[in-house]
């Protein structure tokens, strides 16, 4: 036993000396001209390739440093901001409130002057709604100086997907997806008849319910009325809101919703859809990459959720997927901006899109990407997102709203009951605010 312990001791001692060489601070950024911190594991090889291309073109080295998962990355960026160690380029994850606090603390460079140079050449490359996520409008509630503070490197939209093979099995034309909500309910009846599974989605992670409900709220009552509700000017007991809640009951009664949907996490939903076990899915554009990994032969297509009313256009959630910000205190900020301009050029964006199966933020790249991604990108014309509305709903109201819909689906409550309950919480929160 003693010889064993001694040999372990010796091994550790030698390891100690090997590692002492690593004890000195290693500033990997020393040799690099620009340092970028990111959290996107799946994009790391593509970023490294782009870094090589940029070095070959300009002679400037860009050092992409990956820190995943995103929760830990967020902690690192916050700590680095406190310690004054932020890199030249980084991303801020979280809500717009977090983004605004970084801007107000002077960590993020305002990019409006660069965006508007040469007749807004850089600004015009992007989908306007992708840029909106990184923009603070005049008189914003965050009290941030109006302007653009981030560069979108890709975008995302959340849409409805259908399995073409299963659609055919149901007796429908796979080239003719449902165009109205009524058609969706008819398909639901057929799904029930054939004992198949209808719509799968991550509705256990309630924000996706919120997203789906908001799509239809915009279609039924329009953006102004939805925003007026958030402001407290329209009650949730309004007939239009009751109609939104009723849609979920109708979907459930028709058999359109898959079993166990209310507790389903998105990973399970993706697995079911990828393995041809569900006819429909409600998912974000990131799913293209996920499905490709799970089942490369999956035959599917993306559509906007079929509309209930033709009074207002259908809206879906979408906008910037990931964005980069420039450190306002960096000595290399000019070089960093130049690099971001190059990174968001059509060629680099097309390369990123093809390599990572994400949607490009540059609208000129859409013609150069796979069809299914281009279909998701088309949805940008109908995209909206809570982060660009300028106002946000109280968290307890959102919770009651989403949980209320879950209870409608499981038949625990009626749409009218849920509307009243949500309104009660809204009034309580408004009274607290006053």
């Amino acid at each position, binding site marked *: 036993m003693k010889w064993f312990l001694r040999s372990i001791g010796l091994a550790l001692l030698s390891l*100690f000396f*090997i590692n002492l060489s*690593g004890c*000195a601070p*290693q500033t990997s950024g020393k040799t690099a001209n620009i340092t970028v911190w990111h959290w*996107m594991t799946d994009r790391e090889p593509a970023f490294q390739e782009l870094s090589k291309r940029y070095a070959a073109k300009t002679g400037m080295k860009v050092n992409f440093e990956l820190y995943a998962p995103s929760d*830990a990355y967020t902690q690192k960026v916050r700590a680095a901001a406190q*310690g004054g160690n932020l890199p030249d380029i980084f991303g801020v994850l979280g809500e717009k409130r977090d983004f605004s606090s970084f801007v107000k603390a002077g960590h993020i460079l305002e990019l409006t002057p660069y965006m508007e140079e040469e007749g807004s050449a850089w600004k015009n490359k992007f989908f306007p709604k992708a840029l909106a996520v990184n923009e603070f409008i005049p008189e914003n509630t965050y009290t941030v100086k109006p302007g653009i503070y981030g560069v979108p490197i890709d975008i995302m939209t959340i849409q409805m997907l259908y399995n073409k093979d299963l659609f055919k099995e149901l007796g429908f034309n796979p080239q003719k997806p449902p165009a109205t909500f009524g058609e969706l309910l008819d398909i639901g009846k057929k799904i029930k008849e054939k004992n198949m599974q209808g719509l799968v989605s991550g509705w256990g992670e309630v924000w996706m319910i919120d997203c789906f409900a908001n799509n239809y709220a915009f279609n039924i009552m329009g953006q102004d009325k939805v925003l007026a509700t958030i402001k407290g000017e329209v009650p949730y007991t309004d007939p239009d809101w009751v109609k939104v809640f009723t849609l979920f009951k109708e979907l459930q009664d028709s058999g359109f919703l898959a079993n166990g949907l209310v507790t389903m996490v998105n990973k399970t939903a993706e697995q079911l859809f990828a393995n041809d076990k569900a006819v429909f899915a409600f998912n974000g554009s990131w799913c293209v990459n*996920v499905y490709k*990994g799970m089942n490369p032969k999956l035959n599917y297509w993306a559509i906007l959720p079929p509309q209930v009313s033709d009074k207002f256009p259908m809206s879906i959630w979408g906008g910037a997927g990931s964005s980069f910000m420039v450190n306002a205190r960096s000595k290399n900020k000019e070089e960093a901006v130049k690099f971001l301009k190059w990174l968001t050029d059509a060629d680099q964006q097309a390369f990123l899109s093809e390599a990572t199966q994400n949607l490009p933020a540059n609208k000129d790249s859409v013609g150069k990407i796979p069809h299914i991604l281009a279909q998701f990108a088309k949805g940008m014309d109908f995209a909206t997102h809570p982060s660009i509305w300028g106002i946000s709903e109280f968290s307890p109201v959102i919770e009651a709203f989403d949980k209320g819909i879950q209870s409608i689906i499981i038949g625990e409550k009626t749409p009218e009951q849920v509307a009243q309950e949500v309104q009660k919480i809204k009034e309580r929160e408004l009274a607290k605010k006053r």
Partner: protein
Amino acid sequence: MKTTLYYKTKKIGINILIHLFLLSVAITCIFPLVWMVSSSLKTQETIFRDTSLIPKSFHFENYYLAWMEGGFGRNFLNSIFYTTSVVIGIIIVSSLAAYAFSRLRFPGSNLLFFMFMAAMMIPIPGSFVPLYVLLNKLHLRNTALGYILCMINVGLSTSIFLLKTFFDKMPKELEDAARIDGCSKLGIWWHVALPLAKPVLAVVVIFNALNVWNEYVLALIIFDSKPLMPLQVALTTFQGEFITRYPLLMAGLTITALPIILVYLLMQKYIVKGVTQGAVVG
């Protein structure tokens, strides 16, 4: 005769029940490990399609890919180095502190001990930012020493508590005998207290080794240099925001779990002792 048969049957019945219960607990513990190894030998596609524990075709190349793509070589050595340094540091500091708290009477000793115990209540994520700022000011950020010191600090409270409880119950006569033989206070700690505390030390080693081996968030925050990162950080390279490369992740996890399983096997005897008869000393 009837009574003997009744008691025998009852004993067998109870034994069957106990063994069934233990068997189900063992299966619950072992199943995730078996699933991990099985998944590490499948492809990304078959993980979601083929739910059997024995894959139709074995993809051993996942281990090679995980090792190469995750950069496990350097990270593996780092993790071994951090774990050993931290565990040794914790054992030295906590055993000395616990012995002092148990045997030395000085003003404020109880208050100091309770302050140590209070530190157990602070979750480590809550102290990330202050720790980062402190290490930055001490120029210890992005250094192995800074990380080791932080991790020693994390493990001290629990270890001191465990060892102090043990030393409190240790018969004073043993120390008196050592003192008569000419042992100093430090000598008693080294020659008497520590050898007797082997079972508790084994528990301290296991708990802390596991804690350091599995830690990655603090490492990710403190280190900027990839060559300093521990093994767990390398594992996160297979986990994307929306997509996870399960076969490589499972292969990486299997590689990562092996050393800690080895530590368990080596210390098994002491751990059982520490858990079952930690209080019986001398």
